[in-house]
Protein backbone atom coordinates (compact mmCIF):
# COMPACT_ATOMS: atom_id res chain seq x y z
CA UNK A 1 0.00 0.00 0.00
CA UNK A 2 1.23 3.40 -0.82
CA UNK A 3 1.55 5.39 2.35
CA UNK A 4 -0.02 8.77 2.38
CA UNK A 5 2.41 11.61 2.36
CA UNK A 6 2.14 14.04 5.19
CA UNK A 7 1.20 16.59 2.60
CA UNK A 8 -1.69 14.46 1.44
CA UNK A 9 -2.77 13.65 4.96
CA UNK A 10 -3.11 17.33 5.58
CA UNK A 11 -5.15 17.61 2.44
CA UNK A 12 -7.41 14.83 3.58
CA UNK A 13 -7.75 16.35 7.01
CA UNK A 14 -9.42 19.35 5.48
CA UNK A 15 -12.02 17.16 3.93
CA UNK A 16 -15.08 15.53 5.27
CA UNK A 17 -15.26 11.86 5.28
CA UNK A 18 -16.24 9.12 2.87
CA UNK A 19 -16.96 5.73 2.31
CA UNK A 20 -15.96 3.07 0.32
CA UNK A 21 -15.96 -0.03 -1.32
CA UNK A 22 -12.98 -1.34 -2.77
CA UNK A 23 -12.62 -5.00 -3.19
CA UNK A 24 -14.86 -6.53 -5.81
CA UNK A 25 -16.84 -9.31 -4.20
CA UNK A 26 -18.90 -11.07 -6.85
CA UNK A 27 -22.54 -11.42 -6.02
CA UNK A 28 -22.52 -8.98 -3.19
CA UNK A 29 -24.63 -5.91 -3.48
CA UNK A 30 -22.44 -2.97 -2.71
CA UNK A 31 -23.45 0.37 -1.45
CA UNK A 32 -23.73 2.67 -4.40
CA UNK A 33 -25.08 5.86 -5.75
CA UNK A 34 -28.87 5.85 -5.45
CA UNK A 35 -28.95 2.97 -2.95
CA UNK A 36 -30.01 3.19 0.64
CA UNK A 37 -27.76 3.71 3.60
CA UNK A 38 -28.41 0.10 4.63
CA UNK A 39 -26.14 -1.05 1.80
CA UNK A 40 -23.28 0.80 3.43
CA UNK A 41 -23.58 -1.35 6.51
CA UNK A 42 -23.66 -4.51 4.37
CA UNK A 43 -20.34 -3.46 2.93
CA UNK A 44 -18.78 -2.60 6.20
CA UNK A 45 -19.56 -6.02 7.66
CA UNK A 46 -18.59 -8.06 4.62
CA UNK A 47 -15.40 -6.16 3.99
CA UNK A 48 -14.40 -6.04 7.62
CA UNK A 49 -13.66 -2.42 6.96
CA UNK A 50 -13.36 0.32 9.47
CA UNK A 51 -16.03 2.78 8.56
CA UNK A 52 -15.65 6.37 9.57
CA UNK A 53 -18.87 8.31 9.71
CA UNK A 54 -19.33 12.01 10.15
CA UNK A 55 -22.43 14.14 10.11
CA UNK A 56 -23.33 17.59 8.95
CA UNK A 57 -26.66 19.33 9.28
CA UNK A 58 -27.52 18.33 5.74
CA UNK A 59 -26.12 14.83 5.26
CA UNK A 60 -24.04 11.97 6.64
CA UNK A 61 -20.67 11.05 5.18
CA UNK A 62 -19.37 7.46 5.19
CA UNK A 63 -15.68 7.00 4.48
CA UNK A 64 -13.58 3.94 3.80
CA UNK A 65 -10.07 3.47 2.53
CA UNK A 66 -9.51 0.84 -0.14
CA UNK A 67 -6.54 -1.55 -0.10
CA UNK A 68 -4.82 0.71 -2.62
CA UNK A 69 -5.00 3.64 -0.24
CA UNK A 70 -7.72 5.39 -2.17
CA UNK A 71 -10.36 7.09 -0.06
CA UNK A 72 -13.97 6.78 -1.18
CA UNK A 73 -16.71 8.85 0.44
CA UNK A 74 -20.44 8.30 0.16
CA UNK A 75 -22.86 11.05 1.06
CA UNK A 76 -26.20 9.96 2.50
CA UNK A 77 -29.21 12.24 2.61
CA UNK A 78 -31.57 12.54 5.61
CA UNK A 79 -33.89 10.31 3.61
CA UNK A 80 -31.26 7.59 3.81
CA UNK A 81 -30.21 7.60 0.16
CA UNK A 82 -26.65 7.77 -1.19
CA UNK A 83 -26.78 10.92 -3.32
CA UNK A 84 -23.10 11.45 -4.04
CA UNK A 85 -19.76 9.63 -4.11
CA UNK A 86 -16.26 11.09 -4.22
CA UNK A 87 -12.85 9.43 -4.50
CA UNK A 88 -9.23 10.45 -4.15
CA UNK A 89 -6.05 8.40 -4.09
CA UNK A 90 -3.47 6.33 -5.95
CA UNK A 91 -5.95 3.98 -7.66
CA UNK A 92 -9.29 4.66 -9.26
CA UNK A 93 -11.94 2.84 -7.23
CA UNK A 94 -14.31 0.32 -8.79
CA UNK A 95 -16.81 2.71 -10.33
CA UNK A 96 -19.15 -0.14 -11.17
CA UNK A 97 -19.58 -0.59 -7.44
CA UNK A 98 -19.53 3.06 -6.51
CA UNK A 99 -21.99 4.18 -9.19
CA UNK A 100 -24.23 1.12 -8.99
CA UNK A 101 -27.15 1.39 -11.39
CA UNK A 102 -25.72 4.60 -12.76
CA UNK A 103 -22.49 2.98 -13.98
CA UNK A 104 -23.92 2.02 -17.36
CA UNK A 105 -24.94 5.62 -17.99
CA UNK A 106 -21.43 6.76 -17.17
CA UNK A 107 -19.80 4.08 -19.29
CA UNK A 108 -21.89 4.75 -22.38
CA UNK A 109 -22.27 8.52 -22.21
CA UNK A 110 -20.49 10.35 -25.00
CA UNK A 111 -17.61 12.52 -23.87
CA UNK A 112 -18.60 16.11 -23.31
CA UNK A 113 -15.49 17.73 -24.69
CA UNK A 114 -12.19 17.30 -26.47
CA UNK A 115 -10.34 16.14 -23.41
CA UNK A 116 -7.19 14.11 -23.18
CA UNK A 117 -6.88 11.19 -20.80
CA UNK A 118 -6.73 13.28 -17.68
CA UNK A 119 -10.39 14.17 -17.48
CA UNK A 120 -13.83 12.82 -18.18
CA UNK A 121 -17.03 14.66 -17.44
CA UNK A 122 -20.58 13.38 -17.81
CA UNK A 123 -23.17 16.05 -17.15
CA UNK A 124 -26.76 14.90 -17.42
CA UNK A 125 -30.00 15.85 -15.68
CA UNK A 126 -29.98 12.47 -13.95
CA UNK A 127 -26.24 12.02 -13.34
CA UNK A 128 -23.10 14.09 -13.00
CA UNK A 129 -19.68 12.38 -12.97
CA UNK A 130 -16.37 14.25 -13.06
CA UNK A 131 -13.22 12.14 -13.08
CA UNK A 132 -9.68 13.47 -13.25
CA UNK A 133 -6.13 12.69 -12.30
CA UNK A 134 -3.12 10.81 -13.53
CA UNK A 135 -1.32 7.55 -12.93
CA UNK A 136 -0.92 7.02 -9.13
CA UNK A 137 -3.34 9.88 -8.32
CA UNK A 138 -7.04 9.93 -9.17
CA UNK A 139 -9.93 12.16 -8.13
CA UNK A 140 -13.61 12.12 -8.83
CA UNK A 141 -17.12 13.23 -7.93
CA UNK A 142 -20.43 11.61 -8.89
CA UNK A 143 -23.89 12.69 -7.83
CA UNK A 144 -27.54 12.46 -8.78
CA UNK A 145 -28.93 15.99 -9.04
CA UNK A 146 -32.48 15.00 -8.08
CA UNK A 147 -31.25 13.29 -4.92
CA UNK A 148 -29.30 16.27 -3.57
CA UNK A 149 -30.79 17.33 -0.23
CA UNK A 150 -32.08 20.88 -0.12
CA UNK A 151 -29.28 23.31 0.61
CA UNK A 152 -26.45 21.06 -0.59
CA UNK A 153 -24.18 22.41 -3.34
CA UNK A 154 -22.64 19.50 -5.19
CA UNK A 155 -19.42 21.38 -5.87
CA UNK A 156 -18.78 21.58 -2.14
CA UNK A 157 -18.80 17.81 -1.66
CA UNK A 158 -15.25 16.69 -1.06
Amino acid at each position, binding site marked *: *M*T*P*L*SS*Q*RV*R*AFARLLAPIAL*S*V*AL*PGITQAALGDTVASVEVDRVRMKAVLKTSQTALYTVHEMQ*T*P*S*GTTVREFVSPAGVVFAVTW*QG*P*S*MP*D*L*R*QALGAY*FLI*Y*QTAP*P*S*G*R*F*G*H*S*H*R*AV*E*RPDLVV*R*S*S*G*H*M*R*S*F*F*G*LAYVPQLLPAGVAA*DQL*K
Partner: protein
Amino acid sequence: MRNRTACAICAVLALASACGGGGGGSSLGPPPPTGQNVAPIIVDSGPAAAVNVVNTAYVTVTLCAPGGMTCQTIDHVSVDTGSYGFRVIASVLNSSLAQALPQTQASSGQPLVECTKFADGYVWGPVKTADLKISGEEALSVPIQVIGDSAFPDSTVPSDCSSAGVQENTVALFGANGILGIGVFREDCGSGCTTVVQPGWYYNCPASGCAGTTVTLAQQVQNPVFHFTTDNNGAIVELQSVGPAGAPTVSGSLVFGIDTQSNNTLGSATVLMVDANYGEFTTLFNTQTANQTLTASIIDSGSNGLFFPDSDSTMKACTDSTGKPTGFYCPASTQSLSATMQSVTSVMKNVSFSIANADALLGNNLTYFAFGNLGGSNPSASSFDWGLPFFYGRNVFVAIEGQTTSAGMGPFFAF
Protein backbone atom coordinates in the same frame (compact mmCIF):
# COMPACT_ATOMS: atom_id res chain seq x y z
CA MET B 1 -4.24 40.21 -24.48
CA ARG B 2 -6.20 40.96 -27.60
CA ASN B 3 -9.93 40.96 -27.70
CA ARG B 4 -11.48 37.52 -27.84
CA THR B 5 -14.59 38.55 -29.75
CA ALA B 6 -12.60 40.19 -32.48
CA CYS B 7 -10.45 37.13 -32.67
CA ALA B 8 -13.47 34.86 -33.07
CA ILE B 9 -14.68 36.96 -35.98
CA CYS B 10 -11.29 36.71 -37.59
CA ALA B 11 -11.31 32.96 -37.24
CA VAL B 12 -14.73 32.68 -38.81
CA LEU B 13 -13.37 34.58 -41.77
CA ALA B 14 -10.43 32.22 -41.87
CA LEU B 15 -8.18 35.18 -41.51
CA ALA B 16 -6.84 34.45 -38.11
CA SER B 17 -3.37 35.49 -39.06
CA ALA B 18 -4.62 38.97 -39.84
CA CYS B 19 -6.04 39.32 -36.37
CA GLY B 20 -3.23 40.87 -34.46
CA GLY B 21 0.29 39.89 -33.75
CA GLY B 22 1.11 36.29 -33.19
CA GLY B 23 -2.28 34.92 -34.16
CA GLY B 24 -2.35 31.74 -36.13
CA GLY B 25 1.06 30.30 -35.66
CA SER B 26 3.71 29.16 -33.31
CA SER B 27 6.54 31.59 -32.94
CA LEU B 28 10.04 30.99 -34.08
CA GLY B 29 12.29 30.49 -31.14
CA PRO B 30 15.93 29.51 -30.98
CA PRO B 31 16.98 26.70 -33.30
CA PRO B 32 16.05 23.26 -31.98
CA PRO B 33 18.72 21.32 -30.13
CA THR B 34 20.60 18.65 -32.00
CA GLY B 35 22.28 15.49 -30.81
CA GLN B 36 21.88 11.78 -30.33
CA ASN B 37 19.67 12.49 -27.29
CA VAL B 38 17.10 14.64 -29.14
CA ALA B 39 13.82 13.42 -30.65
CA PRO B 40 11.53 15.81 -32.55
CA ILE B 41 8.10 16.54 -31.06
CA ILE B 42 5.06 17.59 -33.06
CA VAL B 43 1.72 18.79 -31.73
CA ASP B 44 -0.77 18.12 -34.51
CA SER B 45 -4.05 16.38 -35.37
CA GLY B 46 -2.67 13.02 -34.34
CA PRO B 47 -2.76 9.71 -36.19
CA ALA B 48 -5.29 9.50 -39.01
CA ALA B 49 -7.69 7.39 -37.00
CA ALA B 50 -7.75 9.75 -34.03
CA VAL B 51 -10.62 12.17 -33.52
CA ASN B 52 -11.05 15.17 -31.25
CA VAL B 53 -7.36 15.44 -30.52
CA VAL B 54 -6.12 18.78 -29.23
CA ASN B 55 -2.95 19.78 -27.40
CA THR B 56 -1.28 16.38 -27.71
CA ALA B 57 2.49 16.17 -28.16
CA TYR B 58 3.79 13.28 -30.26
CA VAL B 59 7.15 11.64 -30.94
CA THR B 60 8.29 8.77 -33.15
CA VAL B 61 9.88 5.71 -31.59
CA THR B 62 11.39 2.50 -32.91
CA LEU B 63 10.08 -0.62 -31.22
CA CYS B 64 12.04 -3.86 -31.56
CA ALA B 65 11.84 -7.39 -30.31
CA PRO B 66 14.74 -8.01 -27.88
CA GLY B 67 17.94 -8.29 -29.85
CA GLY B 68 16.92 -5.67 -32.38
CA MET B 69 16.40 -7.97 -35.38
CA THR B 70 12.69 -7.26 -35.78
CA CYS B 71 11.78 -3.57 -35.53
CA GLN B 72 9.08 -1.11 -36.47
CA THR B 73 8.98 2.67 -36.50
CA ILE B 74 5.89 4.01 -34.75
CA ASP B 75 4.84 7.61 -35.17
CA HIS B 76 2.35 9.67 -33.17
CA VAL B 77 3.27 8.27 -29.78
CA SER B 78 2.07 10.77 -27.19
CA VAL B 79 4.59 12.22 -24.74
CA ASP B 80 3.18 11.98 -21.23
CA THR B 81 4.90 13.37 -18.15
CA GLY B 82 1.91 12.21 -16.08
CA SER B 83 2.42 8.48 -16.57
CA TYR B 84 5.23 5.97 -16.53
CA GLY B 85 6.11 3.41 -19.19
CA PHE B 86 5.67 2.74 -22.91
CA ARG B 87 2.39 1.40 -24.28
CA VAL B 88 1.45 0.72 -27.89
CA ILE B 89 -1.89 -0.06 -29.53
CA ALA B 90 -1.73 -3.64 -30.87
CA SER B 91 -3.35 -2.78 -34.20
CA VAL B 92 -0.40 -0.51 -35.00
CA LEU B 93 2.10 -3.39 -34.90
CA ASN B 94 2.93 -5.34 -38.03
CA SER B 95 2.48 -9.06 -37.71
CA SER B 96 6.16 -9.94 -37.57
CA LEU B 97 6.88 -7.62 -34.67
CA ALA B 98 3.65 -8.52 -32.89
CA GLN B 99 4.66 -12.16 -32.99
CA ALA B 100 8.27 -11.50 -32.04
CA LEU B 101 7.57 -9.59 -28.83
CA PRO B 102 7.86 -12.09 -25.97
CA GLN B 103 5.09 -12.25 -23.39
CA THR B 104 6.16 -11.36 -19.84
CA GLN B 105 5.31 -14.02 -17.30
CA ALA B 106 3.80 -13.36 -13.90
CA SER B 107 5.52 -15.04 -10.97
CA SER B 108 3.07 -17.90 -11.45
CA GLY B 109 4.54 -18.57 -14.89
CA GLN B 110 1.32 -17.45 -16.57
CA PRO B 111 0.99 -14.40 -18.83
CA LEU B 112 1.13 -11.03 -17.07
CA VAL B 113 -1.58 -8.66 -18.30
CA GLU B 114 -2.21 -5.10 -17.22
CA CYS B 115 -5.18 -2.85 -16.78
CA THR B 116 -4.04 0.76 -17.15
CA LYS B 117 -6.52 3.26 -15.83
CA PHE B 118 -6.63 6.85 -16.92
CA ALA B 119 -9.07 9.39 -15.52
CA ASP B 120 -11.26 8.97 -18.60
CA GLY B 121 -11.20 5.20 -18.96
CA TYR B 122 -8.89 2.24 -19.26
CA VAL B 123 -6.78 0.15 -21.62
CA TRP B 124 -6.15 -3.60 -21.34
CA GLY B 125 -3.38 -5.74 -22.69
CA PRO B 126 -0.39 -7.97 -22.02
CA VAL B 127 3.01 -6.94 -20.71
CA LYS B 128 5.69 -7.81 -23.25
CA THR B 129 9.44 -7.34 -23.41
CA ALA B 130 10.90 -5.01 -26.02
CA ASP B 131 13.83 -2.88 -27.03
CA LEU B 132 12.75 0.74 -27.32
CA LYS B 133 14.81 3.16 -29.40
CA ILE B 134 14.20 6.88 -29.57
CA SER B 135 16.63 9.39 -31.00
CA GLY B 136 20.00 7.74 -30.31
CA GLU B 137 18.90 6.29 -26.99
CA GLU B 138 18.02 2.67 -26.32
CA ALA B 139 16.14 0.94 -23.51
CA LEU B 140 16.83 -2.75 -23.93
CA SER B 141 14.59 -5.61 -22.80
CA VAL B 142 12.11 -3.47 -20.89
CA PRO B 143 8.53 -4.43 -20.04
CA ILE B 144 6.00 -2.52 -22.17
CA GLN B 145 2.24 -2.88 -22.56
CA VAL B 146 0.57 -3.96 -25.80
CA ILE B 147 -2.94 -2.50 -25.70
CA GLY B 148 -5.84 -4.39 -27.24
CA ASP B 149 -3.88 -7.56 -28.03
CA SER B 150 -6.16 -10.18 -29.61
CA ALA B 151 -4.71 -12.85 -27.32
CA PHE B 152 -6.53 -11.13 -24.45
CA PRO B 153 -9.85 -10.00 -25.90
CA ASP B 154 -12.60 -8.05 -24.17
CA SER B 155 -13.98 -11.26 -22.69
CA THR B 156 -10.86 -11.50 -20.54
CA VAL B 157 -11.14 -8.02 -19.03
CA PRO B 158 -11.77 -8.34 -15.28
CA SER B 159 -14.68 -6.47 -13.75
CA ASP B 160 -12.49 -4.31 -11.53
CA CYS B 161 -10.67 -3.16 -14.67
CA SER B 162 -13.66 -2.38 -16.87
CA SER B 163 -15.15 -0.56 -13.90
CA ALA B 164 -13.01 2.42 -14.91
CA GLY B 165 -15.65 3.16 -17.53
CA VAL B 166 -14.74 3.64 -21.15
CA GLN B 167 -12.40 1.21 -22.90
CA GLU B 168 -9.82 2.95 -25.12
CA ASN B 169 -8.04 0.04 -26.77
CA THR B 170 -8.04 1.55 -30.28
CA VAL B 171 -6.06 4.35 -31.90
CA ALA B 172 -9.30 6.24 -32.48
CA LEU B 173 -10.31 6.16 -28.84
CA PHE B 174 -6.81 6.48 -27.41
CA GLY B 175 -5.89 9.41 -29.65
CA ALA B 176 -2.39 8.09 -30.31
CA ASN B 177 -0.58 5.04 -31.64
CA GLY B 178 1.04 4.66 -28.25
CA ILE B 179 2.07 6.58 -25.19
CA LEU B 180 5.54 7.31 -23.84
CA GLY B 181 5.24 7.78 -20.10
CA ILE B 182 8.32 9.72 -19.03
CA GLY B 183 7.13 11.15 -15.72
CA VAL B 184 9.04 11.28 -12.45
CA PHE B 185 8.71 7.61 -11.47
CA ARG B 186 10.59 4.52 -12.67
CA GLU B 187 7.63 2.12 -12.82
CA ASP B 188 3.95 2.63 -13.44
CA CYS B 189 2.57 1.27 -10.18
CA GLY B 190 5.65 1.17 -7.99
CA SER B 191 5.89 -0.38 -4.57
CA GLY B 192 2.12 -0.26 -4.15
CA CYS B 193 1.81 -3.33 -6.41
CA THR B 194 4.67 -5.44 -5.04
CA THR B 195 3.04 -6.81 -1.90
CA VAL B 196 -0.67 -6.03 -2.25
CA VAL B 197 -2.91 -7.12 -5.11
CA GLN B 198 -4.25 -3.79 -6.28
CA PRO B 199 -7.68 -3.94 -7.88
CA GLY B 200 -7.48 -2.85 -11.48
CA TRP B 201 -3.71 -3.05 -12.03
CA TYR B 202 -1.83 -6.29 -12.83
CA TYR B 203 -3.32 -9.71 -13.56
CA ASN B 204 -2.13 -13.27 -13.84
CA CYS B 205 -3.93 -14.65 -16.90
CA PRO B 206 -4.00 -18.41 -17.47
CA ALA B 207 -6.50 -19.70 -20.03
CA SER B 208 -9.00 -20.23 -17.24
CA GLY B 209 -9.25 -16.51 -16.61
CA CYS B 210 -7.46 -13.51 -15.16
CA ALA B 211 -6.94 -12.83 -11.47
CA GLY B 212 -5.19 -9.94 -9.80
CA THR B 213 -1.57 -10.47 -8.87
CA THR B 214 1.31 -8.74 -7.19
CA VAL B 215 4.28 -7.81 -9.38
CA THR B 216 7.88 -7.02 -8.63
CA LEU B 217 9.18 -3.61 -9.56
CA ALA B 218 11.20 -5.17 -12.39
CA GLN B 219 8.13 -6.88 -13.86
CA GLN B 220 6.17 -3.64 -14.05
CA VAL B 221 5.97 -1.51 -17.17
CA GLN B 222 9.01 0.75 -16.98
CA ASN B 223 9.78 4.38 -17.70
CA PRO B 224 12.21 3.72 -20.57
CA VAL B 225 14.35 6.79 -19.86
CA PHE B 226 15.51 5.24 -16.62
CA HIS B 227 16.82 2.29 -18.65
CA PHE B 228 18.88 4.25 -21.15
CA THR B 229 22.62 3.57 -20.95
CA THR B 230 23.31 7.30 -20.80
CA ASP B 231 21.16 10.41 -20.36
CA ASN B 232 18.99 8.34 -18.02
CA ASN B 233 18.22 10.74 -15.17
CA GLY B 234 15.32 12.47 -16.86
CA ALA B 235 14.16 14.36 -19.91
CA ILE B 236 13.25 17.81 -21.16
CA VAL B 237 10.09 18.64 -23.09
CA GLU B 238 10.81 21.72 -25.20
CA LEU B 239 7.97 23.28 -27.17
CA GLN B 240 7.66 26.47 -29.19
CA SER B 241 5.32 29.15 -27.93
CA VAL B 242 1.83 29.58 -29.32
CA GLY B 243 -0.07 32.76 -30.13
CA PRO B 244 -3.37 33.58 -28.43
CA ALA B 245 -5.48 32.12 -31.24
CA GLY B 246 -3.60 28.83 -31.20
CA ALA B 247 -1.76 27.15 -34.05
CA PRO B 248 -2.31 24.29 -36.52
CA THR B 249 0.85 22.59 -35.27
CA VAL B 250 3.67 23.22 -32.84
CA SER B 251 7.09 21.64 -33.03
CA GLY B 252 9.58 20.96 -30.32
CA SER B 253 12.10 18.53 -28.95
CA LEU B 254 12.25 15.75 -26.42
CA VAL B 255 15.76 15.92 -25.00
CA PHE B 256 17.03 13.09 -22.83
CA GLY B 257 19.24 13.54 -19.80
CA ILE B 258 19.68 16.47 -17.42
CA ASP B 259 23.13 18.06 -17.35
CA THR B 260 24.60 15.05 -19.13
CA GLN B 261 25.26 16.86 -22.43
CA SER B 262 25.80 20.41 -23.59
CA ASN B 263 22.22 20.48 -24.89
CA ASN B 264 20.44 19.56 -21.65
CA THR B 265 21.87 21.87 -19.02
CA LEU B 266 19.61 22.79 -16.14
CA GLY B 267 21.14 26.24 -15.94
CA SER B 268 19.07 28.67 -13.91
CA ALA B 269 15.85 26.67 -14.10
CA THR B 270 13.79 26.59 -10.92
CA VAL B 271 13.73 23.10 -9.41
CA LEU B 272 10.40 21.98 -7.93
CA MET B 273 10.80 18.82 -5.89
CA VAL B 274 7.64 16.69 -5.82
CA ASP B 275 6.39 14.18 -3.27
CA ALA B 276 7.68 10.64 -3.57
CA ASN B 277 4.30 8.92 -3.72
CA TYR B 278 2.22 10.94 -6.14
CA GLY B 279 4.72 13.07 -8.03
CA GLU B 280 2.83 16.17 -6.97
CA PHE B 281 3.50 19.63 -5.56
CA THR B 282 1.40 22.54 -4.30
CA THR B 283 -0.07 25.35 -6.35
CA LEU B 284 -1.17 28.50 -4.56
CA PHE B 285 -3.92 30.01 -6.67
CA ASN B 286 -5.97 32.92 -5.43
CA THR B 287 -9.21 33.73 -7.16
CA GLN B 288 -11.55 36.60 -6.47
CA THR B 289 -13.46 34.46 -4.03
CA ALA B 290 -10.93 32.16 -2.42
CA ASN B 291 -7.27 31.59 -1.63
CA GLN B 292 -6.71 28.06 -2.82
CA THR B 293 -3.90 25.76 -1.70
CA LEU B 294 -3.87 22.98 -4.26
CA THR B 295 -1.65 20.28 -2.76
CA ALA B 296 -2.10 17.64 -5.50
CA SER B 297 -0.75 19.61 -8.44
CA ILE B 298 1.20 18.15 -11.35
CA ILE B 299 2.91 19.19 -14.58
CA ASP B 300 1.38 16.77 -17.07
CA SER B 301 2.06 16.95 -20.80
CA GLY B 302 -0.63 14.29 -21.22
CA SER B 303 -3.33 16.71 -20.07
CA ASN B 304 -4.59 18.87 -22.88
CA GLY B 305 -5.49 21.93 -20.85
CA LEU B 306 -4.86 23.84 -17.65
CA PHE B 307 -7.32 22.31 -15.21
CA PHE B 308 -8.04 23.93 -11.86
CA PRO B 309 -10.97 24.21 -9.44
CA ASP B 310 -13.63 26.62 -10.58
CA SER B 311 -14.26 28.47 -7.37
CA ASP B 312 -14.08 31.75 -9.25
CA SER B 313 -17.28 32.99 -10.82
CA THR B 314 -15.41 34.84 -13.55
CA MET B 315 -14.23 31.52 -14.96
CA LYS B 316 -17.54 30.70 -16.60
CA ALA B 317 -18.04 27.08 -17.63
CA CYS B 318 -18.67 26.31 -21.29
CA THR B 319 -22.00 24.68 -21.97
CA ASP B 320 -23.23 22.57 -24.83
CA SER B 321 -26.41 23.11 -26.86
CA THR B 322 -28.50 21.71 -24.03
CA GLY B 323 -26.94 23.95 -21.41
CA LYS B 324 -24.76 21.29 -19.79
CA PRO B 325 -21.21 22.22 -18.85
CA THR B 326 -18.56 20.68 -21.10
CA GLY B 327 -15.77 20.92 -18.55
CA PHE B 328 -13.79 23.65 -20.32
CA TYR B 329 -13.82 27.30 -19.32
CA CYS B 330 -15.54 29.96 -21.39
CA PRO B 331 -14.81 33.32 -19.78
CA ALA B 332 -16.45 36.29 -21.47
CA SER B 333 -13.02 37.66 -22.22
CA THR B 334 -9.57 36.15 -22.00
CA GLN B 335 -8.43 36.09 -18.39
CA SER B 336 -4.81 36.81 -17.49
CA LEU B 337 -4.02 34.95 -14.30
CA SER B 338 -1.12 33.88 -12.18
CA ALA B 339 -0.40 31.22 -9.60
CA THR B 340 2.55 30.19 -7.48
CA MET B 341 4.00 26.71 -7.61
CA GLN B 342 5.44 25.54 -4.30
CA SER B 343 7.71 22.51 -4.14
CA VAL B 344 7.74 20.04 -1.25
CA THR B 345 10.89 21.83 -0.11
CA SER B 346 9.03 25.17 -0.26
CA VAL B 347 10.75 26.55 -3.34
CA MET B 348 8.32 29.03 -4.88
CA LYS B 349 7.86 29.92 -8.54
CA ASN B 350 5.29 32.30 -9.95
CA VAL B 351 3.61 31.33 -13.23
CA SER B 352 1.48 33.55 -15.43
CA PHE B 353 -1.11 32.05 -17.73
CA SER B 354 -4.21 32.94 -19.69
CA ILE B 355 -7.56 31.27 -20.12
CA ALA B 356 -9.51 32.09 -23.27
CA ASN B 357 -13.03 31.08 -24.23
CA ALA B 358 -12.70 27.39 -25.13
CA ASP B 359 -15.77 27.41 -27.37
CA ALA B 360 -14.26 30.19 -29.42
CA LEU B 361 -10.84 28.56 -29.51
CA LEU B 362 -12.01 25.09 -30.44
CA GLY B 363 -15.10 25.92 -32.45
CA ASN B 364 -13.62 28.60 -34.65
CA ASN B 365 -10.26 26.99 -35.31
CA LEU B 366 -11.08 23.52 -36.52
CA THR B 367 -7.72 23.13 -38.25
CA TYR B 368 -5.83 24.23 -35.15
CA PHE B 369 -4.62 21.62 -32.71
CA ALA B 370 -2.45 23.62 -30.32
CA PHE B 371 -3.87 26.16 -27.88
CA GLY B 372 -1.83 27.83 -25.16
CA ASN B 373 -4.79 29.26 -23.26
CA LEU B 374 -7.18 26.32 -23.05
CA GLY B 375 -8.43 25.57 -19.55
CA GLY B 376 -11.14 23.78 -17.68
CA SER B 377 -12.46 22.79 -14.31
CA ASN B 378 -10.73 20.23 -12.13
CA PRO B 379 -13.10 18.11 -10.09
CA SER B 380 -10.47 17.84 -7.42
CA ALA B 381 -10.57 20.79 -5.06
CA SER B 382 -6.90 20.15 -4.28
CA SER B 383 -5.31 19.91 -7.73
CA PHE B 384 -3.99 22.21 -10.41
CA ASP B 385 -3.22 20.15 -13.48
CA TRP B 386 -0.64 22.05 -15.54
CA GLY B 387 -1.23 20.42 -18.90
CA LEU B 388 0.33 20.95 -22.31
CA PRO B 389 -0.49 24.70 -22.53
CA PHE B 390 2.03 25.17 -19.72
CA PHE B 391 4.75 23.61 -21.89
CA TYR B 392 4.41 26.02 -24.84
CA GLY B 393 7.37 28.36 -24.90
CA ARG B 394 9.15 26.51 -22.11
CA ASN B 395 11.78 23.86 -21.52
CA VAL B 396 10.31 21.61 -18.82
CA PHE B 397 12.71 19.23 -17.06
CA VAL B 398 11.41 15.98 -15.57
CA ALA B 399 13.85 14.25 -13.20
CA ILE B 400 13.24 10.61 -12.32
CA GLU B 401 13.08 9.32 -8.75
CA GLY B 402 16.36 8.02 -7.40
CA GLN B 403 18.36 9.41 -10.32
CA THR B 404 21.12 11.87 -9.65
CA THR B 405 21.25 15.28 -11.28
CA SER B 406 23.27 18.43 -10.70
CA ALA B 407 20.31 19.72 -8.67
CA GLY B 408 20.03 16.64 -6.51
CA MET B 409 18.02 13.45 -6.73
CA GLY B 410 14.68 13.20 -8.54
CA PRO B 411 11.74 13.27 -8.45
CA PHE B 412 11.39 16.86 -9.54
CA PHE B 413 10.17 19.17 -12.27
CA ALA B 414 12.18 22.21 -13.32
CA PHE B 415 11.69 25.02 -15.79
